[in-house]
């Protein structure tokens, strides 16, 4: 098991955003997290990434207890993440953005630049290499974020809705990119709303609602799960579906 979360809860005052969430991700898997808005998947995601400290529970990466570790430690140990709203370094060029990631593993400017260039080629950003990050559209920024994280040589990548808001063509390209990253041996946990992405990429899925994990298993099974349908469409909707089938 590369990443494990045991009974993770996160509360803000009296409100529990996440309650008793369990997760185990084996090396080389692609695991998806789904659930309606406010279901707690983003908060859980932030706990995995070290951006939020769980109120209770444990998070273990490659045998190391990461529960209270800051994001910097996560990155050093090989966990990388993207942000739901792209957080690229706007004023810096594309290559400089990626170099910041590369510098984690390469102290020398020359080595970092070489590594960054390779990553940029891999992610298809070569044409925009010297442009400022803010001149890229949202799809470009999302791609840049992925490139930047990739430059840190992660073993595990946490993708936070990195494929949202893309045109069908862009979406196919993005899915290809995620597959390529997976083929490089990187384990992936992906939060997504777009069902096509989950069904195509994820080997396993966890469904969240109101802070709890309500279903987990293969994508095709979870999608048919009654509790999951109820979570998205409301109570009793699973009965409607069965009647019409």
């Amino acid at each position: 098991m590369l990443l494990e979360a045991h009974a993770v809860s996160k509360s803000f005052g009296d409100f529990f955003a996440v309650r008793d969430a369990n997760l185990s991700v084996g090396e080389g898997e692609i695991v998806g997290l789904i659930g309606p808005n406010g279901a707690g998947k983003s908060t859980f995601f932030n706990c995995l990434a070290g951006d939020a400290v769980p109120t209770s529970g444990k998070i273990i990466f490659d045998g190391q207890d990461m529960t209270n570790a800051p994001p910097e430690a996560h990155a050093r140990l090989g966990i990388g993440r993207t942000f739901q709203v792209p957080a690229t370094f706007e004023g810096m060029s594309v290559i400089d953005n990626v170099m910041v990631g590369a510098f984690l593993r390469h102290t020398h400017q020359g080595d970092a630049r070489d590594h960054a260039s390779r990553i940029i080629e891999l992610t298809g950003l070569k044409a925009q290499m010297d442009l400022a990050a803010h001149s890229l559209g949202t799809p470009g920024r999302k791609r840049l974020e992925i490139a930047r994280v990739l430059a840190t040589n992660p073993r595990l990548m946490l993708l936070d809705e990195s494929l949202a808001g893309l045109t069908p063509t862009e979406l196919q390209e993005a899915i290809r990119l995620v597959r390529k990253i997976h083929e490089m041996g990187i384990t992936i946990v992906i939060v997504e709303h777009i069902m096509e992405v989950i069904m195509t990429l994820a080997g396993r899925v966890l469904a969240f609602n109101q802070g709890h994990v309500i279903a987990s298993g293969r994508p095709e099974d979870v999608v048919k799960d009654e509790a999951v349908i109820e979570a998205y469409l409301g109570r009793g909707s699973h009965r409607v579906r069965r009647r019409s089938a």
Partner: protein
Amino acid sequence: MNKIPALSPTVLLAVALLIYPLIFSGAFYLDVGVTFLLAAISASAWNIVGGYAGQVSVGHAMFFGLGAYAPLLCYKLYGWTPMAGIPFGIAASVALAILIGIPTFRLTGHYFSMATIAVAELIRIYFGTWDLVGAAIGMQGPATARGWWDLTFRSELPYYYIFLTVLAVLLSFTYLMERHRFGYYLRAIKAGERAARSLGVPVQQTKIRALVLSAVFTSVAGSLYSVKTGFIDPESGFGILVSVQMVIIAALGGAGRLYGPLIGALILIPLQTATNTWFGGGGTGLTFILYGGIIVLIARYEPGGIYDLWEQISPRLWRRKHAS
């Protein structure tokens, strides 16, 4: 047709600064030149932590003042040549930087800025009561030189070239820093701390290092000031004008840019000299009103300063030039 090779702006700048005193050799022009260099050094020092890292210190005078007092204190207490006091100023500034940086860089940016004002004021008031350093009256350096090492010169010319050397060292350091991992990390922190942390940037450590580096150079600037002037008091060392000037010069020219502070000083020092000359004693008050207004305008319309403004305008100028 043969193309004339373009001379790099750096070379042109260096040449201009080197020959300035030879062309403008009068005492007045020399004084303006020396003031300009000192302002450029201070602002470039501030730029490391305030411009590149985006941690806005509005009390940087605390480092300047410590650097300014140290040489004259060593002279007063032990009769040493003032230069010998420079390392002590640096040591005190480094200690202060760490003292402020460690607690405040854990918190949001405002705490750091507030702390810098509070500490600068605290030190200023305290030094005004401390007899050892001359309290409100301050201290003086050697009236006549006991040797060249006292750096007490009649003419300002030697000071000009000493300051120019220090400026060159500082700018070279900044240039190298920009290309080093440290420089990338600073810019990443300024652009987005949260993202920087997620990429493994040791944010707090980096900020503290930036503050320490900035403090070292600011302290040196202060030492240069008191050695040249031969005098220091709480107001000229720790006063708010000192802090404000560093910030406005860097911000006006372009915070976070290598030549930003230089450009800012090029504009502001002659301007300041002019207002002081025209309005005499009341000039300082008017200078502040002007500074306040300029700072607000920069904040509102062009936080990137003249550098950014130029980058936005020049493509359009080029297009028009080529169209005709």
